[in-house]
């Protein structure tokens, strides 16, 4: 019988207004790690959702599992074929325990009155977590976990199934390096067991680290499939983007401009303690550390979403008191949250409405009515400058791909013309093209005098964009350095508290860094 676990042929998918996939194919061998790559909106997630039975392809599509032709009408069909999927936007149940979240789905299709076997659930979930080396109490409700932890639970679920094929749609996007390493090891283990894996990511580095073969999509079309040893990063990027992408590392000299933003001993019990730092004119301040270090909580407290126990702020030398996000925006502080879909966007509303949301008051004409014309122009401008695709201003944000959604969120804040921009995990799930654009953008904003604070778990990104780097560990600043003294080793040391073993596992030779970005 065939040595392919999965073959999908002439797959097309038309959404109202968008041809997301146009006659695409995907062939995955048994036990291989197959990378699926393409720019934002290339159609990766859509292809996966078709494989999962969530979207129905346009007529003419063919599926073969292990050579036998198959039909996938509902998610359960895929599950029964041994396909399990880790979605880009997680699919967990916040109100259920970790254990149940891991187990759920295995009984789907069984009798409604079947008694659930709690012992079994406990056993399976604990096993899965152990393999992943995650230590969370299996009785915790998932809503209690950070996004990173949730990501890991999602992965644990997929592993708990005795799946033949596991699809991972950008699983590392919100993981920190050490967790990423864990995941890599899991992937190796799985493929060693003969389980096939489709791995979607925008981080070429990790794709080369993991994959046996690549399938490249561009604008919903099939470009080709390549063995890892027949191709290199430059070529791959060329195939994805259809043009050369040039990388550059931040050649920063220490900024000596005036201090435009100062945080003084911020503390919030259970989240962070005694955080103080300054931000200078034209400077990009990178805040990194392991996931769960308290960065987001810190950012949210500065932005006024969360209460702080103590601490004070100064913008351009004068103290400001921020008690709510409204204050923050008034005072010129903007925050791009890490949870794009829930916190960043009003998904059901149009791109325009999202972009104008923070400044809607300023768009009033003399009747106190919103001046629609100005609003549209403004939106158009950012859609253009950020190259949001498809560039249909009235399209609901929900219909955009992950990366394009992020662009809209950034556009939203640029429209507010902030003094200080705090951006949390700015390039989660953003493709290499857009990524460098965003990095350039951040630098440009800094040079235009906006203070940029970038929270990121992706060290190469931190190194490429920041002038100065803060490392947080367990809610405290554990290290600070200028970028030109910074190395990944150094950062990881501060982040892990000098835990040697962990630290080796994440060493990446410096010269390659520049390329990964």
């Amino acid at each position, binding site marked *: 019988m065939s040595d392919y676990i999965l073959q999908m042929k002439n797959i097309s998918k038309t959404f109202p207004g968008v041809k997301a996939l146009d006659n695409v194919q995907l062939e995955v061998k048994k036990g291989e790690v197959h990378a699926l790559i393409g720019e934002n909106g290339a159609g990766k997630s859509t292809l996966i959702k078709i494989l999962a039975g969530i979207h129905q392809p346009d007529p003419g599509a063919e599926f073969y599992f292990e050579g036998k032709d198959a039909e996938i009408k509902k998610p359960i069909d895929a599950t029964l074929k041994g396909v399990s999927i880790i979605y880009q936007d997680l699919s967990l149940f916040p109100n259920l325990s970790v254990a149940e979240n891991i187990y759920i789905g295995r009984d789907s299709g069984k009798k409604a009155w079947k008694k659930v076997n709690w012992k079994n659930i406990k056993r399976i979930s604990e096993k899965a977590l152990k393999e992943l080396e995650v230590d969370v109490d299996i009785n915790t409700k998932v809503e209690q976990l950070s996004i990173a932890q949730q990501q890991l639970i999602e992965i644990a679920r997929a592993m708990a199934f005795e799946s033949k094929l596991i699809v991972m749609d950008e699983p590392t996007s919100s993981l920190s390096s050490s967790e990423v390493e864990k995941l890599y090891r899991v992937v190796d283990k799985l493929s060693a067991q003969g389980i096939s894996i489709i791995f979607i990511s925008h981080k070429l580095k990790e794709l080369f680290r993991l994959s046996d073969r690549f399938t490249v999509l561009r604008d919903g079309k099939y470009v080709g499939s390549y063995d890892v040893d027949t191709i290199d990063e430059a070529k791959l990027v060329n195939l994805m983007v259809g043009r050369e992408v040039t990388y550059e590392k931040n050649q920063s000299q220490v900024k000596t401009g005036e201090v435009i933003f100062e945080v003084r001993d911020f503390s919030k019990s259970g989240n962070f303690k005694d955080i103080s730092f300054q931000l200078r004119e034209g400077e990009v301040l990178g805040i990194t550390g392991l996931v769960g270090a308290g960065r987001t909580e810190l950012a949210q407290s500065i932005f006024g979403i969360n209460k702080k126990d103590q601490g004070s702020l100064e913008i351009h030398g004068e103290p400001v008191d921020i008690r709510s996000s409204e204050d923050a925006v008034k005072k010129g502080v903007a925050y791009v949250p890490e949870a794009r879909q829930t916190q960043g966007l*009003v998904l059901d509303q149009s791109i325009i409405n999202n972009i104008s949301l923070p400044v809607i008051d300023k768009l009033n004409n003399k009747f106190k009515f919103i001046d629609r014309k100005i609003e549209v122009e403004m939106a158009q401008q950012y859609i253009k400058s950020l190259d949001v695709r498809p560039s249909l201003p009235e399209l609901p944000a929900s219909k955009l791909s992950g990366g394009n959604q992020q662009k809209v969120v950034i556009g939203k804040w640029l429209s507010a013309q902030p003094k200080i921009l705090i951006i949390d995990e700015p390039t989660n799930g953003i493709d290499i093209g857009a990524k460098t654009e965003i990095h350039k953008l951040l630098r440009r904003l800094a040079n235009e005098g906006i203070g940029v604070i970038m929270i990121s778990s992706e060290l190469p990104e931190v190194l490429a964009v920041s002038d100065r780097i803060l490392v947080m560990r367990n809610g405290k600043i554990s290290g600070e350095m200028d970028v030109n003294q910074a190395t990944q080793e150094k950062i990881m040391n501060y982040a892990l508290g000098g835990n040697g073993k962990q630290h080796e596992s994440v060493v990446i030779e410096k010269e390659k860094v520049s390329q990964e970005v």
Partner: protein
Amino acid sequence: MKLSKESILGLIALGTFLFMALLAPGFLSSNNINSMMFQIPEFGLLAIAMMVVIVTGGIDLSITYIAALAGVGAALMLTNGFGIFPAIIMAILFALACGAFNGFIVSKIGVSPILVTLGTMVLFEGVILAITKGSSISGFPDAYSLIGNGYYLGLVPFSIVIFAIFAIITGLLLSKTSWGRRVYMYGSNEVATLYSGVKNSKVLMKVYLYAALLAAISAIIMTSRYNSVKVDLGSSYLLQSVAAAVLGGTNIHGGYGKVIGTIYAVFVFQFIRNGLNLLGFHSSLVDVVIGSILILVLTMNFFSDKFKKKQEQKNASQAA
């Protein structure tokens, strides 16, 4: 052909009108048309009030008792020799007080609206009982009864004019002002609005105040029409107004809803009730018909949506 939910409902309203005009004797008679115009405003205002709240993803079960309490406010003034304007002001103040109370608990404490208003519904009713001892307050000056019974330029009922004005105002507020925009945005995703520097509590507070204001206007019309107020003033409108709002296309989970849709829905209900009464239907059968319409229309929407999607798919795939 691309028709919005609202315009379809508009056609349905027109349809029921013609249908009744054909079947129901005297439906078109001038004084029937008249009495319909007198009947629409009080309910219409409450329905719009409910719609605004529903757009935020909430619901206001206390709305009719807010109206009743506002009515009591006016009645107390009138029966104590105050003029019409003080009375109207008092009605509005009473209502706003209730609205502020709801708004505070919903927006500041963050209790879900259905809970809050379940409580305040009983609370406000209680306040009215405590004030009126359950009996009705009546006997208002004729000038006051003109509001609900009088004509503008001798042909259009005053009340319908008032209704039209507030309908338009509401429409403008929702679709053209930044408050209205925020109401919709909040309705679709309140977390995102918070993260965008929107002061959710302010937006919400205004919503409940505005709903209360509309309730007060409705109350003024009712009290002047019925020349009295009692604890149950307009209580039969509660679930009806929810029904009208959703029949009008308002998304019960928030984020979408249009004044015009709600108005069409109110018309549909009005034509059906009035028509069937003229046809001498048993009143309880009228409810049956209303209920059926509600379900039928939404079922229709569902299938027409499905159909549209299919069409679009086809066009798109042919285009490609």
